[in-house]
């Protein structure tokens, strides 16, 4: 329960309609896009819909004084529980701070508030001939603030990198309510520590981003989507590897195994050849159709050498969109295959991709569980999904073991626990395995220095 005095002061700071206190509202801000149980609900004590940096700073000054937890939230699309208020307190919702503050065409930069949706930002820039490349599958319903907090990736990472590669500067409200400015528009900048990078991926535990300066690049003139079916998953992996080695770096290379393909096909009423064991969606971009033809041709011959059985080129933007929808819908389509789905987000060096897939299959066989595998083959980031029914006695324990095995395999191959979803609540048990004692000690010291009272998103990461 919050101190009455805190509530009174908050109400003075905010428009009354922007402070939600009804139980039903609190319940609906107790979850996010992660697969954690809905009940018992981790209700916040209240929800604040912030409209300005001043309000965010005001809320944090109060919370700091009263020692109240504050959990930042955008649209709640996170997959690891990052915006769930596990210790109650205040959910600080920034989705209505969604303005584009400045579009700087000369420097190819855009300054935005954190609540802008990724897709809206992309569209805004694209209409002006510029490109904001990070494209998490949730782009239509995720915010830039959340993307920064989780260092979101996406399909295009193989060629264009992830969110952190585009964040030039930030305005961050610190735990005590002071406002910090980091970085800026200078491309080269070694003035002090790189605080911008520190906040990217910090999952709301170090400060709350209220403004971001993002780098843009010229929009590729033409794009082409290609869908290739393979009779083996190994062949598909090899095709991606060889395509990158050949210098034809695709703008995306998304892989799906048979289970995933059939899940989406079921939803979209598509017929899929039963011989198909894996599919890849390639996106190529470039300056001209000739350039695309060259890339497509090369990819086709490489794929054939790796055992492709069908090669489909999208002829229209609608077809291209259709192929992408296939990939974007996969996560939830797979989830519908079994009563419960535990989706993971491991990442390995690209060369280890075929090996990790092999190990995942071995784990599935050993434990007698189905694991659907899909992900970003181009950058080594995969989403193995364990399909199960947790109501079966003993299943929970078995799944926990399998998750442990998956993480172990990823770490052994030089990989990591999370490619793009963050650690949140769901992976914190494994953080020491991934970072080591010294690694965890170091991030703890940083946390302590910036948030001595531990009010910012407590209970996350470590």
């Amino acid at each position, binding site marked *: 329960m919050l101190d009455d005095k805190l509530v009174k002061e908050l109400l003075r700071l905010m428009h009354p309609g922007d402070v*939600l206190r*009804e*139980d*039903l*509202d609190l*319940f*609906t*801000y107790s*979850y*996010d*896009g*992660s*697969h954690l149980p*809905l*009940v*018992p*609900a981790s209700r916040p004590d209240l929800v604040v*819909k912030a409209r300005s940096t001043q309000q965010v700073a005001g809320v944090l000054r109060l919370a700091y004084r009263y020692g109240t937890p504050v959990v930042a939230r955008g*649209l*709640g*699309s996170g997959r690891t529980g990052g915006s769930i208020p596990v210790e109650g307190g205040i959910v600080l919702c920034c*989705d*209505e701070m969604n303005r584009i503050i400045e579009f700087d065409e000369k420097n190819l930069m855009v300054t935005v508030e954190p609540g802008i*949706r990724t*897709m809206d930002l992309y569209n805004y820039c694209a209409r002006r001939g510029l490109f904001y490349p990070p494209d998490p599958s*949730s782009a*239509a*319903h*995720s915010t830039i603030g959340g993307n920064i907090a989780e260092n979101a990736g996406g399909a295009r990472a193989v060629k264009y990198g992830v969110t952190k590669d585009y964040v030039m500067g930030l305005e961050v409200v610190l735990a005590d309510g002071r406002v910090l400015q980091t970085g800026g528009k200078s491309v080269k900048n070694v003035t002090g520590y790189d605080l911008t990078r520190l906040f990217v991926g910090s999952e709301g535990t170090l400060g709350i981003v209220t403004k971001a300066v993002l780098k843009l690049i010229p929009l590729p003139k033409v794009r082409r989507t290609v869908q290739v079916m393979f009779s083996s998953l190994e062949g598909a992996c090899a095709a991606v590897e060889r395509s990158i080695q050949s210098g034809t770096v695709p703008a995306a290379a998304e892989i799906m195994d048979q289970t995933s393909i059939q899940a989406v096909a079921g*939803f979209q009423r598509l017929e899929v050849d039963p011989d198909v064991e894996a599919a890849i969606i390639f996106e190529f971009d470039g300056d001209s159709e000739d350039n695309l033809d060259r890339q497509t041709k090369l990819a086709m011959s490489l794929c054939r050498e790796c055992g492709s059985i069908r090669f489909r080129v999208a002829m229209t933007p609608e077809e291209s969109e259709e192929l992408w929808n296939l990939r*974007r*819908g*996969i*996560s*939830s*389509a797979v*989830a*519908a295959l079994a*009563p419960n*789905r535990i989706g993971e987000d491991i990442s390995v060096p690209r060369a280890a991709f075929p090996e990790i897939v092999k190990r995942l299959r071995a784990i599935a066989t050993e434990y007698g569980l189905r694991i659907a595998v899909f992900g970003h083959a181009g950058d080594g980031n995969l989403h193995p999904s364990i399909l199960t029914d947790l109501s079966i006695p003993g299943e929970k324990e078995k799944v926990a073991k399998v998750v442990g095995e998956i993480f172990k395999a990823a770490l052994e191959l030089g990989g990591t626990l999370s490619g793009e979803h963050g650690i949140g609540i769901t992976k914190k048990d494994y953080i020491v395995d991934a970072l080591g004692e010294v690694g965890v000690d170091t991030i703890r010291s940083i946390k302590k220095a910036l948030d001595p009272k531990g009010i910012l998103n407590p209970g996350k990461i470590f």
Partner: protein
Amino acid sequence: MKKDAADFLAKADALVNRCDRCGACLSVCPLYALSQREIASARGKISAVRGLLEGGLTTGSSIAKAFEFCLLCRACTEKCPSKIETDEVMVAARQYTAGKLGRKARHRLVAGLLGSNVLLSLVTGVLDLSRRAAMGRLSGTAGPLEPAGSHYREMLAGPASFPPLPAGPGAKMPQGGKIAYFRGCAMKIFFPAAAGATVNLLKKIAGVVVPAAVCCGSPHLAHGMLGQAMALARTNIERFGGAGLIVTDCASCGHSLKEYGHRLADDPRWADKAQEFSQKVMGLSEYLYHAGYRPGGRLPFKVTYHDPCHLGRGQGIKREPRELLRLAGNYVELPSADRCCGGAGTFHLDFPEEARRILNDKVADIAQTGAEVIVTECPACMMQLAKGEQQSGRFVVKYISQVL
């Protein structure tokens, strides 16, 4: 066989469990865009139902109101990777809250009126007189009988709901037999001229009979009166027993009639008959297009088209009305044509301010096309768009049967 309120909620269990809370619906829900509150979104409502089922929430007036605050427009379902039918969940949830807390007087009144042919004909008669009296004031040909003056007229605005169609073959073309025209309540009461135009159109293709239909039951279903809805369904099935093909020009009736097979599937006495009935139902433009009707001539005005939720997403009828209008000439596509207009059954009565704001966007979109006429195939949309017509004065609303 009296069902407990909780049974209805349990019916939604399998649906809500498929939601993995990804949040995709937040990007398309018109009501989330309006209020920016999680509870307004499909994810919020589905989670609330789960909360009730799993013991994380208790029933109260605020949850009942949250369930009412849904257009049942299915925009979320279309976007949802798991294709969860939020409208179906809301029908079950409203049935549940109605059983627990009672129904709104307004909804009971609408349902009572539509459920009774005697009352309905009285109302129709009164409106008919007032229409004659008001003849001179009427704008154009198709518009509703009079401006928004009579409140109870609005309360009859067509229903808004419903679920996916069971897979199966669509209706077959009649082999020289007669078409049975299903004239829904709203067409009968508010748009008799449009209903007449529908009959004339159908007569160009085949013989037409107009059996005495009762309400399709859709408003009852939307407001937690399942028992009455099913009783009406059974009456309609009996009255249309001999028909080879049933055509309706009301999007919501069509959607509801095509659902009878699904709704009565568990009733051994009615399941087969209901299934057979549903398979004979076609929407007006769906029928016209597939029967090979091609409008001749060229419309003397620029026309655009608004997709009724129950026709486009509800029945998958998107291409047919457009093709027909294109042939009729001078057709332009409306941006976001399938976004709900805000009419949505009794939504505009329950939440007038929100409905008005949703309509404003629609009006702006229509104005942007430069079309002089907006056409639709649903009486509820028709009424809502007529308000937009009055507001903007830049276009008129016509029923599809009146321009083909």
